């Protein structure tokens, strides 16, 4: 009998209440993608725009997730934006 397409260990998912969500590598990719599309505005403007975009469109769990991310692989613009997000 074919197996039901599902996530590995889906039935044993942890009880996470309003905590960081998602694969943080994916969140880092998203942050880099946003930063890359603002880059042509100049670095300072791009950092501000990236920060503003994440603030406006990411849910709290995603924001917590990117803050948990160690910063590895983040572009300079994304890294500065995340740093600013951390500082509030």
């Amino acid at each position, binding site marked *: 009998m074919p197996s039901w397409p*599902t996530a590995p260990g*889906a039935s044993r*998912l942890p009880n*996470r209440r309003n905590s960081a969500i998602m694969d943080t590598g994916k969140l880092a990719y998203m942050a880099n993608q946003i930063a890359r599309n603002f880059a042509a505005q100049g670095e300072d403007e791009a950092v501000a725009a990236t920060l503003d975009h994440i603030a406006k*469109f990411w*849910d*709290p769990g995603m924001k917590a997730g990117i803050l948990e991310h160690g910063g590895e692989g983040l572009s300079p613009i994304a890294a500065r934006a995340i740093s600013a997000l951390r500082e509030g």
Partner: protein
Amino acid sequence: MTYERQKDFGTPEVLAETQVTLIIDGREVTVPAGTSVMRAAAECGGSIPKLCATDNMKAFGSCRLCLVEIEGRKGTPASCTTPAEQGMVVATQTPRLEKLRRGVMELYISDHPLDCLTCSANNDCELQDQAAAVGLRDVRYGYEGADHLGAPVDTSNPYFDFDPSKCIVCSRCVRACDEVQGTLALTIDGRGFASMVSAGQTGDDFLSSECVSCGACVQACPTATLQEKSVKEIGKPERSVVTTCAYCGVGCTFRAEMRGEQLVRMVPWKDGKANRGHSCVKGRFAWGYANHADRITSPMIRETIHEPWREVSWDEALAYTAGKLNAIKAQYGARALGGITSSRCTNEETFLVQKLVRAGFGSNNVDTCARVCHSPTGYGLKTTFGTSAGTQDFDSVMQADVMLVIGANPTDAHPVFASRMKRRLRQGAKLIVIDPRRIDLVRTPHVSAEHHLALRPGTNVAVLTAMAHVIVTEGLVDQAFVAERCDVDAFEDWARFVSDERHSPEFLAEVTGVPATTLREAARLYAKGPNSAIYYGLGVTEHSQGSSTVMAIANLAMATGNIGRPGVGVNPLRGQNNVQGACDMGSFPHELSGYRHISDGDTRALFEADWQVSLDDDPGLRIPNMLDAALDGSFRAIYIQGEDILQSDPDTRHVAAGLAAMDCVIVHDLFLNETANYAHVFLPGSTFLEKDGTFTNAERRIQLVRKVMEPANGLQDWQVTQALANAMGLGWTYTHPREIMDEIARLTPSFEGVSFERLDEQGSLQWPVNEANPDGSPVMHVDGFVRGKGLFVVTDYVPTDEKTGLRFPLLLTTGRILSQYNVGAQTRRTANVVWHEEDVLEIHPVDAENRGLKSGDWVRLASRKGETTLRAKVTDRVAPGVVYTTFHHPETQANVVTTDYSDWATNCPEYKVTAVQVSRSNGPSDWQENYAELADRSRRIAPAEPAE
């Protein structure tokens, strides 16, 4: 409303400032100059006999029945081709005219079967009416001679028959196909007595011809020659209700013609301001899904997705669902719950679902199918213009001198509007098409695009920036418009950016695949207009730079001053019937209705006061984020109304895994769709025929949807959502959707003046409807942009991360076809499958040759994400290196192949660019086989327990 044909004025309305006054049968009538005598007579209540004339096409002057006498003129001119003139004195009924008309009618009837009592058009036949009108009592000749009475009936079309024995060769069908639809599939074959309506070439029938089954010919036919099969089977309608189509974003108004509770036919309503009396094969004919045997009308539940469904009462289903949701909320928090609103449902239903999520679930985790289609339009137009909507009404196209169509296939996806476009193009407007594929509009009868920029998929931004380069560097900017209407600093930054040589057509040609000369000519043509309008679709939005492309489009329109008047503008062609409305209603996780951000305290306070709840001030999760969060364990339950994300969303395996990870998936739909394979609760939905409410089309036009029959499941969708809300303890008390619209209006400034009463009076209203625009806004940004000054945004071309290579050398792009709609849940359950019974893969002859493929071969389509199999169609409609398919059939599951790359700003999936390989196949993929078996198992319904 009791059944009667819509009044026919005989010839089209003329719009002219000069008026003329004439006397017709002693009555004085004033009409615009250029109006026909026939129409002038109809305007003052008269009714000149006619057969070949009808008011949605040009006068033809062939039937010779509409003759009149005009004082001071010789002869008896045809009133349809004679313009009314100042001081003219017309007689429409005289002994001479009576005699002439009777003679003409006698000839018609001499070659027409006299089977009125058994004819499907009996009592609904213009020939019959006119025979009575002219007082025909006898036919002196014809029955012994040659006639057409034995001509065979063409029954090939699934929706209508062609019976040439009843044809009077008035050419209305041929002219409707030419003038209204613009397909030119019909002709009059032969000469004299042998003249006969013919579809396509010799040997063709209606089905094999180029006929697109829009129904215009059937509607135009004055006899039963072209007749709906449904009328033949059921009989003449006895009542009718005007309502709005539930297919694409054009929003056609139809008259649902009923006999008892049975729908006999859908006839386009001439007063519909979106469709102006035209229709397509979907809206006109493909409504049979409403009564399809697959329809589920009882609620069902199950503990796990491995069990069969169990039919239960509404009370049990709602109590079970509310219990699950409340328990999950208590254990995991409000943000573990979310919902998806439907772009196929009404504004009122959509508004209630997002209200349930925000006010009931307590999170902002609400999203809508616009996430996967026009969310970049929302972002891009809000950023540049200040609001998320197209700028024009559809009528505007008739004043366009140049149309730039990018990433849209209107003849397939928005066919009724495409007919308007083609009409304008036949009048001489110029066309630029930017599309990797040679869509039908590039070359269609009497229409040929000036330029087709067959760009490489994924290079929209590069092409548009190169066009901007030409416009700026060749001095084609409308400096006065920019200075007066736009943020000049932002313009200067943008102009400097696009002027850089690296954005020139020559520099980018290698990237885009578009020859520099062609691109320069296209840019000049667009800039010089004088009225240039951009129409775009999902080929713009469904890219990793979808939002950038929308902003690049807005930049072009502002730079050339093509905003704020008829004939110009930026026009997103919306996919589903109520995408615009679903977005307007606050379906996105970051904003409330009217596109106001959830963090805006004043707006939130307005809703909190009205709803008597406290709202979360943080944005919620988008659909892809919900699925990711489900895999992470923080998102546990979802209420999905009228969407099938398993089939429609990208990377099917990921969607399946996300759904499978949830504790409670609630599907509210007409059918056990693909998503329902992973659901725990199924709430049966109602069709658009079974509900009251409103849809908002692509031109921001709000139109009433009127119930024409009782819901098969017993409840309209808004009632189901309300019942669920109340089962969760919310205490909602709406008794009719008009009360929901009243709430929308008091909470949403752009809907301030909207009510069911006003919509009923006006027919439709285009938002914003407010104090400044009490009758709505056909054209936006007339005196200024919603955001104040228009904002130019620098849009750098950032190539997608989805790359071709040795393993996956081709680029797949997906799209739609005329006869099917979205995931096909509706159209696959109609006779439309005769035109498209499976998804096929279009592949260029060179690529096919390299792989030893021919049309009809089974091929394996594989990407880094997955693989499926389908049949190949070898065609040069796609460029070498590009393949194309549709996503209408779950057996194919085209989205098994697509990736989760998405638009940087909105996460709209990049459906239009997937690196793939194509090879010969001898059977379905493992995924297809497994999925088919699982789907069968999942759809099991346990037999009902016997009553005690």
